[in-house]
């Protein structure tokens, strides 16, 4: 029996894939800038995050760490820490406490290496006037700038990725570049995203951001401890969004926004643990989720503690 017939159909499929990939590579030859070297090819042909085996992943991470450190002139580590078993993350936000100070917004920017010049923010704080219709967000103000918060007669509602259990963005992505992890976090492979922005049109919460230009991060403020699916510096032309600080929460730490909130309006925990704080407030407080009628089933709960 020849070696080929010993192969499982899956292996033969892979062979065919490799062949076709080669063909694609050949076609792209004219598209890649002249003088592209082996290094560029490696970058170009990098596989989907979930399709790489351990060895391939290790090699890719080594290259990316080298590349990123060189680009940002700082030693940067990229973790691929997996989801902790029996954990599904959930978030609680106490609207009766939030004072609209936006400390969460800027803590997030710093922790997650968002672009400064173009002001990419993963958290949007909406201001509403008391007594106005507000649940449909029509009368919200996103660019309020008062010297002091909370303002008289106003209340605030921060919005970020709601980490839907039924995420429309994942359905939309034509290349499976965004997906839901076992711990419930919706992530993006920044090396696989083609930048079509279809996910942004699908998201009902305005949570996704596009890198319209190359991100601008001050080198001394760059957070060097990163996760592949989280806060590593992004590329021009890819989509990004809140990941519940995947680089922190998978290590048992709290998201940066939860830690920084001066009034304790932000809660975070494991939805599968009946004794967690998030479960307590879900069953004892007045809870609602944003745009519940769309059936996206968010894991982000707004509540009123007082």
């Amino acid at each position, binding site marked *: 029996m020849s070696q080929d017939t010993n192969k499982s159909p899956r292996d033969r499929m892979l062979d*065919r*894939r490799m062949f*076709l*990939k080669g*063909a*694609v590579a050949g076609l*792209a030859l004219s*598209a*890649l800038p002249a003088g592209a070297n082996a290094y560029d090819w490696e970058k*170009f042909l990098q596989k*989907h995050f979930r*399709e790489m085996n351990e060895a391939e992943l290790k090699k890719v991470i080594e290259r990316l760490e080298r590349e990123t450190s060189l680009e940002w002139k700082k030693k940067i580590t990229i973790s691929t820490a997996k989801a902790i078993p029996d954990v599904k993350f959930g978030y609680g936000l106490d609207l009766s406490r939030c004072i609209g100070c936006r400390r969460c917004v800027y803590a997030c920017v710093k922790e997650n290496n968002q672009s400064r010049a*173009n002001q990419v923010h993963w958290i*949007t704080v*909406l201001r509403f006037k008391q007594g106005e219709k507000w649940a*449909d*967000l*029509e*009368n*919200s103000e*996103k660019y309020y700038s008062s010297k002091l918060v909370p303002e008289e007669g106003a209340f605030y509602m921060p*919005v970020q990725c709601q980490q839907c259990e039924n995420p*429309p963005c*994942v*359905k*939309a*992505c*034509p*290349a*499976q*570049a965004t997906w839901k992890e076992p711990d419930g976090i919706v992530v993006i492979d920044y090396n*696989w*995203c*083609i*930048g*079509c*922005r*279809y996910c*942004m*049109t*699908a*998201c*009902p*919460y*305005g949570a*996704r*951001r*596009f*890198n*319209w*230009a*190359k991100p601008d991060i001050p080198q001394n403020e760059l957070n060097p401890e990163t996760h592949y699916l989280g806060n590593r510096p992004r*590329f*021009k*032309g*890819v*989509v990004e969004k809140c990941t519940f600080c995947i680089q922190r929460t998978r290590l048992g730490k709290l998201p940066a926004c939860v830690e920084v909130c001066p009034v304790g309006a932000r809660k975070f925990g494991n939805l599968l643990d009946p004794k967690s704080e998030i479960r307590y407030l879900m069953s004892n407080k007045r809870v609602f989720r944003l745009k519940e009628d*769309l059936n996206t089933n968010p894991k982000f709960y707004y509540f009123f503690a007082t």
Partner: protein
Amino acid sequence: MVYIVRNFFKAIWQVTKGGIGYYVWIAFLLSLIGLGIKTYLDQYEHGLIITAMRDQVPWGFYISNFTFLVGVAAAAVLLVVPAYLYNFKPIKEIVLFGEMVAITAVTMCIMFIMVDLGHPLRVWHLLPIVGTMNFPASMLAWDVLVLSGYLFINLILVFYALYKLSLSKEYSLSMIWPLILLSIPWAVSIHTVTAFLYNGFPSRPFWNASILAPRFLASAFCSGPAIMLILFQVIRKLTKIEIENRAIFKMAELVAYAIAVNLFLLGSEMFKEFYSGSIHKAPLEYLYFGLHESKKLMPWMWVALSFNVAAFLLFLIPKTREDLVTLNIGAVLIILGVYIEKGLGLIVPGFIPDSLGEIYEYWPVMPEALITIGIWASGILFYTLLLKFAIPVYTGDLKFETKKRV
């Protein structure tokens, strides 16, 4: 072997020779394309920041043009149906040129998608087998499949016909009959799937209306044949090809019905939104009356509406329909009307107000306009070259050698 090479050079020679007018035309198109490429390289280097698109309105002029052109491509079916199914002779003779419009339009669609991508070199990620196409969940994956299928079908149909004609043979329909039949539902499918692309997400209430796909088809059947109406007159003016007035008037009549349906559907949508008066009427309100102080698209929408109504009357009344001057005015009006309505008038209000209630008024800026013009110029150049080759084949002036004839 030798005759294949010789035929190849014959074909090349055919598209490169022409009068002074031809060269001026080609040079004009090439300079627009050059400007487009230069601007695109700039966009490639600096990112899509050089456009007016932002997170609030992530799709703009490129996707607007894409949507309009899918409609143009789909409308080729309107020629195919009477030509082949009902054997309407005058249209049958020109259906080839309609199919060539479809090929050109789909090619332009692909270019508009490519320039809209943040990472164009990664486009293979969404292909089946080599990439990880999200099929059947993503409507964009469906769109890639139906559009490339449509391109493929029309390429086969056109080149089969040209091949047979070039060997001075009567081409037999029986060979390609299944493909012709297939092309009809397929044309409907490309525009339906493109409508579903927008239609499928409740995050954008303006698009999330069941009337969207029917409206897409109705408007496509207005603008597509209108473009061909004008093209056919140009073709018969510049070449020996005879296209009967009868065929042109027949198409104009079909356009009149399509405009009627399109206007009716628009009215239905207006009624539903404004009578029920829920907050989801905001995008339509933005389009036709302005939302708060924002009314950038408003004048354009009224222009489009009046163009559509005027074109409807011109195409409906037999006297103006069968007069080439008024007919052409009507054709230009409906093309512009649909271009506004199914272009910016469809894409932008999907994002106004955005999903958190913000209003960001998008209007294309110079770089994206130049890139768009560049793509239109390359489409027109492509069609010109196709015609340059196909017309002499069609009239029998260009013959190819075969082994037998040696």
